[in-house]
């Protein structure tokens, strides 16, 4: 009897998990599917699911119209650069907060997070003026800096949470053995926190990859990443959903693949410490 209940419960949980999974995946599935339809099929009602003439026409039009590789390259540099820069700054910051906290550490953490509570558009003009002053408009380095600053609170918070799970005594032991501060962070702390750091990096690459306010407002032709590539296919006067879907699929494909290959690392990192 007990076994029957547990099988039933397992079945219920599995079904629920599948339902939630499919629900979350559906918009992506639909985008990919639409990218293989003609514009007329894309808006047809009732919608067509699988039985239509698949076409690659949209992809060839998008390829012809836009220089995809340039956008992709910009995305890689901006997402990768801002994440690496952020990690370099956040590791020491999180170390000090986790292992030598002061009276104000909690307040600082909260204050850092509070910068995320202001809508981005509220500082559009100040940031734009700074960019104009420093000649940073439409440069990759400008975007690397801005996206790093935007994501820094999240990086610090995540690393802080992981570091706190690591017993301070291990670091103390290293210190007793004569390790300098740099060595302690590099050779003792970092290897132990690799899953945490890895998942922080992955999450931040995803966040920076999808950031679509600053990357649109601070770029023109040179530094525009894939978000600008997608935006160029959205139209309020005309139905170009199939082309828009093709552009979206091309823009999310690299990050989707990255996520697929690193899912183990990602899941491990995100649940790190939860079962201790």
């Amino acid at each position, binding site marked *: 009897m007990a076994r029957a209940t547990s099988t039933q419960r397992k079945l219920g949980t599995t079904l629920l998990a599948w339902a939630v999974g499919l629900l979350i995946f559906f918009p992506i599935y639909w985008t990919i599917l639409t990218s293989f339809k003609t514009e007329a099929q894309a808006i047809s009602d009732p919608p067509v699911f699988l039985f239509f003439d698949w076409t690659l026409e949209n992809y060839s039009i998008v390829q012809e119209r836009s220089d995809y590789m340039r956008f992709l390259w910009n995305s890689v540099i901006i997402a990768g650069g801002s994440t690496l820069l952020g990690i370099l700054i956040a590791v020491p910051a999180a170390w000090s907060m986790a292992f030598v906290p002061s009276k104000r550490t909690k307040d600082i953490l909260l204050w850092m997070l509070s910068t995320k509570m202001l809508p981005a558009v509220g500082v559009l003009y100040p940031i734009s003026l700074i960019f104009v002053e*420093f*000649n940073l408009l439409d440069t990759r380095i400008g975007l690397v800096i801005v996206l790093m600053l935007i994501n820094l609170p999240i990086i610090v918070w995540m690393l802080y949470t992981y570091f706190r799970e690591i017993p301070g005594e291990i670091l103390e032991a290293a210190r007793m053995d004569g390790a300098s501060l740099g060595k302690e962070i590099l050779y003792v702390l970092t290897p132990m926190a690799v899953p945490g750091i890895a998942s922080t990096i992955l999450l931040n690459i995803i966040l920076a990859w999808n950031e679509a306010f600053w990357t649109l407002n601070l770029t023109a032709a040179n530094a525009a990443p894939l978000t600008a590539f997608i*935006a*160029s296919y959205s139209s*309020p006067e005309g*139905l170009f959903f199939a082309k828009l879907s093709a552009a979206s699929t091309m823009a999310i494909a690299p990050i989707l693949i990255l996520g697929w290959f690193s899912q183990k690392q990602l899941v491990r990192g995100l649940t790190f410490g939860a079962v201790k």
Partner: protein
Amino acid sequence: MSLRKLLAAATALTVAGGTGAFAQTITIATVNNGDMIRMQGYTDQFTEATGIGVEWVTLEENVLRQRVTTDITTKGGQFDIMTIGMYETPIWGANGWLVPLDDLSDEYDVGDILPAMAGGLSHDGTLYAAPFYGESSMIMYRTDLMEQAGLEMPEAPTWEFIAEAARAMTDRENDINGICLRGKAGWGEGGAFITAMSNSFGARWFDEDWNAQFDQPAWAETLNFYVNLMNDAGPPGYSTNGFNENLSLFQQGKCGMWIDATVAASFVTNPDESTVADKVGFALAPDNGLGKRSNWLWAWALAIPAGTQQEAEAKQFIEWATSKDYIALVAENEGWANVPPGARTSLYETPEYQEVPFAQMTLDSILSADPNNPTVDPVPYVGIQFAAIPEFAGIATEVSQEFSAAYAGQQSVEEALEKAQALTNDAMEAAGYR
């Protein structure tokens, strides 16, 4: 080395990597629509002829507006040419943000630009943006459904006729709505439609002292007429429908009539996209016997921001893109139905173009719109579906949100108008008009 110098050096390095192969390259911000995309395909010919390279930054309309407005107000200097509309041009021109286009070549023939377009793109008689294409709004209707209903569409119908026809054509069982109209919030979406419609009912946004007029009977009449009509004959959920949603409904044969941008005519008559391509008729936007019709006027135009380093090259591009020769180029390669409409008088005098089914009605609609004299009673502003003051976009977006809430049944028409009246007067007082 100061931080500033360091950053500037790093920037110079990054930029150096990105410049193109041409001695001169101009950057153009533009909107994503069929005519603009088509032009991008022809820019190689411009580059070959002049040696000037062209970089395109194509954005969705709302993003574009935010992007170019930020750039021009912060003197960002990212663009040599900006695609802007009739709303921005007179305001920016008055602020000295745009290079006046008063020295275009004789060959270009400025006098050929349709007067309504030139008027809406000028400030104090000086042209600040050259129209690439222009549009008004008109009625597109299903000839077969009209016949079934036993009615005949006049060339210049009244709202009374439209309401009668819409109710007669509605067939809920077969999913056919008599009429599809915009209801979506946003000053350029549902806001544009209801403002243009209200003009024909004798309503106006402001009196001559900039007092909001939503407490006047003409506005209540407009909104009640719209809501009753849409509830009886409109599609379900119309309060969230904009241009694209209605286009999709019409192309699938679910609308008897649709009043919207003249540019839609080429979509609904295209057999590749539309299931009703051969059954579409056109008529002027309706009136109410008060002397004003409910059609709007809009142009996407090319302007040069003041302070660009490449003014001469930018002017050269604008002369090419909005010339008679460009129209001829597109006509030769893609047929007359695909040339950018609504900008030049000479286009409508071309015999081949007169054969395009929607050409004459588009011209008549444009000619019947007068942005300098948009309402029955006098107003202190220019613009038909908008008032060309910087505060309008913000105010009208809020007002249209109140209206959409009324369409969705979340509040009554009276409540929506009361709120619109209060918020408009508050904003105008804060801005120093009253």
